[in-house]
């Protein structure tokens, strides 16, 4: 892992940072002036207009921004910039070789991406792609498009760019790009499909080789890794792959509630888990790509904690379980009954005796049932296959 200062590593794309800032302003955690300043600095008028059109901005913020934004100046600057870049392309075509043309095309595309003009940027990127031969450079362009899509929440663009990137990578991408792409994939499935388990798998695989700082800084990467793992993975994995990873150890101190929660799971300190969970959720709420899954994450972590506690017990009193978690017996009763009814926990509550009985079917019959289920599904698929082949 590099020990160089951030001067050597690329910073996250400015349009990604803009999107984050917009999100923070929406939550009231950043002043509107900072947003206006950023938009003016990047000339990102299209970004702003698209965000407004997509309904991502409250009326109050909108009016305040429109008042202070020097719209005409920005439009003027953008027009000039655009003209200059297009001229450069024409000039390159006339006087220079292919690689200069390509560079000029990429420069224009990057500019359009930076101001958040998705349509134009994609078109410009297409032109750049036509001029690009090397697989590595093609993949870089796809990755840039994914970043743009993630910033503008245009998931159709992201999906398309991802499948194209995947093709090229499978055909012959180098390891570095392969690793970077895995991180991009992880972030996409995490935010767009709520597949935290799949995201966690990919993020953990990329833990030792993270270089995608143009997408997010290391600290945020670790944040996602730990949160997704806590919500979906079991204790052995948490203990061996997450809690012991040097990368995690380095960063996690920046997120104290997260550190406590992780430690709680590893050391079976259920009180710590209860106490730190609100802090963790607050961090989740503040993240642009995770906040929509806050409830889900809250639920999953709670279920995981209860399940882990109950693994060792055939029966346990409501009182002692409540004490272990530092909550009242009534509250615990409600929680458990909700999860039991949803078949997330295998237990039964004997309210009269104040005892929880776990009802875990023994492994043998569980496996037997699973064989039957899987075998059935397989038979169906074979039938479908026979229909397809029977031409």
């Amino acid at each position, binding site marked *: 892992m590099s020990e160089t200062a951030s001067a050597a590593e690329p910073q996250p794309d400015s349009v990604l940072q803009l999107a984050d800032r917009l999100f923070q302003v929406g939550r009231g955690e950043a002043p509107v002036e900072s947003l206006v300043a950023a938009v003016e600095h990047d000339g990102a008028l299209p970004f702003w207009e698209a965000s407004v059109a997509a309904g991502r901005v409250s009326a109050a913020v909108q009016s305040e921004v429109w008042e202070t934004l020097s719209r005409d100046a920005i439009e003027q600057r953008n027009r000039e910039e655009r003209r200059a870049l297009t001229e450069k392309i024409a000039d390159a075509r006339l006087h220079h070789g292919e690689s200069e043309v390509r560079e000029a095309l990429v420069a224009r595309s990057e500019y359009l991406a930076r101001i958040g003009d998705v349509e134009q940027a994609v078109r410009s990127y297409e032109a750049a792609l036509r001029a690009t031969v090397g697989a590595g450079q093609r993949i870089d362009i796809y990755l840039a498009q994914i970043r743009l899509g993630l910033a503008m929440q245009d998931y159709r663009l992201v999906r398309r760019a991802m499948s194209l990137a995947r093709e090229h990578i499978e055909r012959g991408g180098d390891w570095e790009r392969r690793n970077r792409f895995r991180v991009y994939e992880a972030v996409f499935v995490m935010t767009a499909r709520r597949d935290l388990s799949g995201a966690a798998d990919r993020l953990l695989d990329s833990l030792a080789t993270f270089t995608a700082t143009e997408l997010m800084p290391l600290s945020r990467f670790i944040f996602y890794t730990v949160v997704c793992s806590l919500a979906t993975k079991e204790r052995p994995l948490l203990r061996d792959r997450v809690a012991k990873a040097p990368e995690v150890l380095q960063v996690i101190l920046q997120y104290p509630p997260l550190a406590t929660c992780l430690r709680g799971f590893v050391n079976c300190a259920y009180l710590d888990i209860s106490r730190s969970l609100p802090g963790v959720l607050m961090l989740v709420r503040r993240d642009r790509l995770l906040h929509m899954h806050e409830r889900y994450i809250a639920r999953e972590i709670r279920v995981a904690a209860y399940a882990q506690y109950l693994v*060792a017990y055939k029966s346990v*009193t409501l009182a002692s379980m409540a004490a272990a978690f530092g909550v009242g017996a009534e509250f615990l009763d409600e929680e458990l009954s909700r999860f039991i009814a949803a078949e997330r926990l295998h237990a039964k509550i004997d309210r009269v005796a104040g*005892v929880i009985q776990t009802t875990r079917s023994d492994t043998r019959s569980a496996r037997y049932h699973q*064989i039957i289920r899987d075998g059935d599904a397989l038979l169906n698929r074979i039938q479908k296959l026979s229909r397809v082949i029977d031409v």
Partner: protein
Amino acid sequence: MTTDTSRTLQLEEANSLAEKDPTQAEQLYRSLLNTPMPEGDESTEAAQREREVAVYGLVELWARQGRAADLVQLSQVIREQFDRVAKAKMAKMIRTLLDALGRCPSSDQLQVSLCEEVVQWCREEKRTFLRQRVEARLASLYLSQKRYGEALAVTNALLQEVKRLDDRALLLEVQLLESRIHHALQNLPRARAALTAARTTASAIYVPPALQGEIDMQAGVLHAEERDYKTAFSYFYEAFEVYATMDDERALANLKYLLMCKLMIEQVPELTALLQGRVALKYQGREVDAMRALAAAYEKRSVHELQRVLDTHRDVLTEDPVIQAHLEDLYGALLERNLLRIIEPYSRLQLTHIAERMDLPVEQVEAKCSQLILDGKLNGILDQGAGSLILHGEEPADDLCSDALQTVQSLNEVVSSLFEKASTLR
């Protein structure tokens, strides 16, 4: 205005008074420093040297008296008075002052702020040499204050600079420091990497024994972390010998650690032999007593004894982070072993029975059992309603089921690929 000779006399007087009448000595030193510089080159040099001696005298005096705040002020004086004339000397004085400050009790925060101030001043005045050394000291202060993030930041920046300058002695120091910081952060791979780098640097220069001892000690610590107690023992022994010959106080710590290593690999007789040997006799004291008591407790396999020893000798055992981590493991391992041995012959037993046998509270026993079950070391389940622990017998090998599942999964994959091929055919 005092003449040359009178000043020299003052100095001699002050030096001799330093032990007996510190207040008087202090006054003399101070007056020496406060007198304005005389004109003329020759007398300037002599006067300069005298002031130097006065400064060192004051520093030593105040260090012994623990007057940290005065020392901090003195640093300002030093910078003002000596900077223009003798830069190297000024640098040396500041460093001596910092060392002296380190000897003052509970002066950590003062040290940190002074270092930060000096670093800032060095940046302004472009005193790279001094700044780097003060920064190294600052980083180690941060480390001792557990401000790991800041320590790491300073160290990383320093490393880049010093590598370029090819100043191997300083580089070695900083790399060793880096290894310690990473170890404190539990980042073993990077701690090891830093130590290897330090060793490489050390191989190219002459390493004074004290520094070599530190390298060996750190190597021992890291090997112990990886549970390689044999190698750790030999490193600690090396370091111990080096320090013992120098009569350095760090020998004691290394003795403690090497005894601990013997304990961790359960070579108690060898441990006792070491304790009775000539070597340890020289170092009688709390540390050695603690280790002896630990060995005894371990022999008896008694968790209680162990806990008692840990409590009575808290200052030398629990307060020492290196020992504490390993002792926790020892305690846990002993607890586990005793627990499992008690449970062994039973298929079902009361938790209270276990608690009685182990002489521990029921809650602790229960918590430990549930953790063991979760870790898979105990094949059973707790029935808290009945207050008992039920042990499952050996499960018959369930190959048939797992094989069947595997087969079904493989067939699934075959079907998937057939689907793909079929779609390409069309």
